């Protein structure tokens, strides 16, 4: 904890608990293969906490130090650092709230300060993988408890009483025996000189004494600023002398600039300069694609200038990428054996002897993130130093990549994290910040690089495109005795390494090898697929196609056997048990230790049963309406969804009601869980109904929200109900931001089948219900 006169000076305090410094951030980090393992201050012992997380294995691990995260001013105002990025999940509120809870701080006297990118100081800052609460619930509690302990020690010394006799209560320390009280502000200077308590000896609050955690009564800290236009996103940063830039980038991944003619662009009023931007060959992680930048006095002029550019591109090796032909390639690959990544029993033999085999081939095309705020960054590079302002999910990674790209040391780079106008995985890639840094260096002036919506769709890091083929073998009684699932999709790893044809463990672990059904003969396979564009993380990642395929197949089996789909689902999940996956070489498990986060079918059954009860499964509906159900475990949470759909005689669909049950273990802010799940229904409906990016001649064919539509209010569900499973005493926290999306599409598709008898196996639904 710091004593400070001015919270803005917080950055000056550089002392922190560190055990090791990781030498480099491996590009393989995101592939689930961490380059250097760091255990910073470890979380408390297992006896005390009953669970461990994978937090320590993230790059730069965890820093548990109140002097880094907490500062108290003489007026009692407590400043708490949020070291993760806010993109709409509420994390900028939730993590500081955890600290405030343990600190016994009064939330109305707490201010939140956004951390700059510095993982040595703050620990891992990658805001992705639905990890923030999961990894930081305990460390943030420890930080708050440490600061509280220091305040209590300082008060005890001041009064000359044993520390055990004093207690922090709502922004004061009290000695009840003598009715004495001291405010946090009065104690701060002394408390800052107290020794740091040992983590092992900390006394955490009894959850029954929580004032804020689990209550859901605290609004997000940026609420007033957001509603008054004062909230600052990446695009809102303005520096004196700042130039505005847009960039024309190669339209085909792997393409490059041949020549350009700037003459017409330079005639546009407000355009000041046209210049080449350095590009890197594909694949090269998040490095810029290169192209031609138009520099102007405002963004409008820059866009108009870019429209007037004449550019010749060399399209390179992906100039023939075409979506219809590529889909055929994937389908053909899915019909032949592939790399076996899970094997139990003998699925091939069992499928041969099965009484009936049901085959489903499911397709989901590329998707674009289209966060409301397109990528944007401001950079000011001068005198060998770089300062960046950007809406990035990975401030630490951005700092490393800017340093590498400019060839300067990391400590010469500072990264200021603004609010993110949506992220969904797109802003885990810092290419836009690298572009701004390169341009600012050359211009010798601060510059903002603004991506247009068209740029966002044409030059992004798309969700993969996949064929998931499942064959289920049934015996005479209708019991499923064999399951063969082949997943074919270009891997995110292809963005890091040329020649990648197999999916990485972290992709295979999203609903393929961790499939939870109790079936005697299982084979999961991964045939080869090469990438022809940049593939990246998109909210929920491979869980989207996997849940769609697996949960659609459950509906198909129910149909074939005349069973109720919910009963069929429970039968397939089988007995309550912890699943053993001995045949899986690398069960990623979202980076979490399996002991703390096993695949627990009792929890999966419970969300199915809860959603069936609350969602009134089996209720009678008029003609043209139907219910569909789906369940999926992802980001170590369990989620089940029931969608009610109405399809009219023209094939137009509406969604009268959605119910979702989530078991995310111990949680912090149920109000934000509701908002995430409500939003997940919209994103799930968007991708199911409309989501499709296609390629022709290597180029993305869509350009904006007109030809890549997302759901608007008039098509949104009339009501979305969220039901949270109360956690067990020691149930570890698990993900919330991403798990809501995957079960939505299959629940919808199963509902459409119930309403119409039509089985949709290819997304988006588009016009398939018409005529």
């Amino acid at each position, binding site marked *: 904890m710091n004593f400070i006169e001015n919270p803005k000076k917080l950055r000056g305090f550089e002392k922190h608990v560190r055990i090791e410094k990781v030498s480099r951030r491996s590009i393989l980090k995101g592939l689930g293969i961490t380059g250097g393992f760091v255990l910073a201050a470890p979380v408390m012992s297992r006896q005390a906490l009953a669970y461990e997380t994978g937090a320590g294995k993230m790059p730069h691990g965890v820093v548990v130090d109140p002097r880094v995260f907490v500062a108290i001013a003489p007026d009692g105002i407590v400043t708490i650092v949020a070291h993760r990025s*806010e993109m*709409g999940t*509420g994390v900028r509120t939730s993590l500081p709230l955890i600290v405030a809870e343990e600190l016994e701080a009064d939330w109305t006297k707490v201010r939140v300060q956004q951390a700059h990118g510095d993982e040595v100081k703050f620990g891992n800052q990658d805001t992705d993988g639905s990890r923030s609460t999961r990894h930081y619930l305990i460390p943030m509690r420890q930080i708050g408890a440490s600061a509280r302990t220091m305040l209590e020690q300082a008060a005890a010394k001041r009064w000359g009483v044993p520390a055990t006799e004093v207690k922090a209560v709502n922004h004061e320390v009290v000695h009840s025996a003598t009715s004495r009280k001291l405010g946090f502000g009065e104690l701060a200077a002394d408390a800052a000189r107290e020794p740091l308590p040992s983590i092992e000896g900390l006394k955490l609050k009894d959850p029954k004494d929580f004032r804020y955690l689990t209550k859901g009564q605290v*609004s*997000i800290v940026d*609420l*007033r600023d*957001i*509603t*008054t*236009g*004062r*909230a*600052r*996103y990446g*695009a*809102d940063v*303005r520096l004196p002398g700042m130039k*505005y830039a847009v960039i024309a980038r190669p339209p085909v991944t792997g393409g490059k600039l041949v020549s350009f003619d700037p003459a017409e662009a330079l005639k*546009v*009023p*407000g355009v000041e300069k046209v210049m080449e931007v350095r590009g890197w060959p594909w694949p090269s992680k998040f490095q810029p694609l290169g192209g031609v930048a138009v520099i102007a*006095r*405002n*963004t*409008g*002029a820059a866009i*108009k200038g870019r429209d007037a550019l004449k550019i010749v591109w060399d399209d390179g090796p992906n100039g023939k990428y075409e979506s219809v032909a590529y889909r055929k390639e994937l389908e053909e690959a899915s019909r032949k054996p592939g790399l076996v990544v899970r094997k139990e029993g003998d699925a091939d033999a069992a499928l041969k002897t099965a009484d009936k085999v049901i085959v489903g081939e499911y397709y989901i095309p590329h998707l674009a993130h*289209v*966060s*409301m*705020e*397109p990528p944007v960054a401001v950079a000011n590079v001068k005198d060998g130093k770089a300062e960046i302002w950007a809406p990035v999910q990975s401030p630490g990674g951005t700092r490393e990549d800017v340093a590498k790209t400019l060839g300067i040391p990391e400590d010469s780079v500072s990264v200021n994290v603004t*609010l*993110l*106008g*949506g*992220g*969904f995985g797109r802003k885990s890639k810092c290419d836009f910040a690298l572009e701004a840094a390169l341009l600012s260096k050359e211009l010798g002036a601060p510059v903002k690089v*603004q991506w247009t*919506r*068209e740029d966002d769709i044409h030059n992004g890091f798309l969700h993969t495109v996949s064929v998931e083929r499942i064959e289920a073998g049934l015996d005479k009684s209708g019991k499923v005795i064999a399951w063969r699932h082949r997943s074919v999709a270009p891997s995110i790893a292809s963005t890091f390494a040329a020649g990648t044809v197999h999916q990485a463990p972290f992709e295979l672990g999203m609903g393929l090898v961790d499939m939870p059904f109790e079936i005697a003969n299982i084979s999961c396979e991964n045939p080869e697929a090469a990438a022809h564009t940049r593939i990246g993380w998109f909210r929920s990642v491979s869980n989207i196609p996997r849940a769609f395929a697996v949960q659609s197949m459950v509906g198909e089996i129910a149909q074939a056997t005349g069973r109720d789909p919910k009963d069929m689902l429970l039968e397939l999940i089988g007995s309550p048990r912890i699943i053993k996956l001995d045949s899986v070489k690398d069960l990623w498990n979202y980076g979490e230790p399996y002991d703390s986060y096993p695949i627990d079918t009792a929890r999966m059954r419970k969300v199915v049963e809860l959603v069936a009860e609350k969602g009134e499964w089996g209720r009678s509906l008029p003609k043209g309406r139907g219910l569909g159900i789906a369940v999926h475990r992802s980001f170590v949470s369990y989620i089940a969804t029931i969608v009610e759909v109405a399809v009219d005689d023209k094939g137009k669909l509406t969604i009268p009601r959605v119910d979702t049950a989530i078991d995310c273990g111990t949680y912090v802010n149920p*109000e934000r869980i509701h*908002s*995430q799940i*409500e*939003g997940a*229904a*919209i*994103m799930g409906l968007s991708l199911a109904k409309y989501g499709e990016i296609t390629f022709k001649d290597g180029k993305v064919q869509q350009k904006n*929200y*007109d030809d890549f539509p*997302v*759901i*608007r*209010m*008039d098509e*949104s*569900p009339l009501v*979305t109900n969220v039901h949270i499973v109360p956690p067990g005493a020691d149930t570890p926290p698990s993900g919330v931001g991403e798990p809501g999306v995957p079960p939505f599409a299959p629940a919808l598709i199963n509902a459409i089948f119930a309403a119409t008898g039509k089985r949709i196996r290819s997304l988006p639904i588009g016009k398939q219900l018409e005529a």
Partner: protein
Amino acid sequence: MIKIKINGQEQSWDGDPDLPLLWYLRDEAGLTGTKYGCGQALCGACTVIVDKEAVRACITSINDVAGREVTTIEGLHPSGDHPVQKAWRQLNVPQCGFCQAGQIMQAAALLMDNQKPSHDQIREAMSGNICRCGCYQRIENAVHLASTGV
């Protein structure tokens, strides 16, 4: 020289008359509450009120609003307590928040035109504004709340 009134203040511009109002507001006037989302009037993130009508600033040139009165999110209410803004806060509407200024301006314009919109009317009037986070249920309820008294 083009003269316009923005949030009650007279402003003038002698640059490109075709410059979209959005970029004038954001880059020249420093009013960054109005957001860029698509540039094609498809998403509504740039919605401002011109006289009493909601317009998309991204396809409205500065020349189009010459002599007219433009209200942005910064000028909707002196202390940020317009009934729509209050309803938004009461129902914890935003997630990332980026589209919300446009949503709020659209909702405020709707309520100027129709003080008691039905849910169907709200859903129709607000459907030009995209929220990628998917806050629609709360937006709909907040507009309703604003119309019935916060």
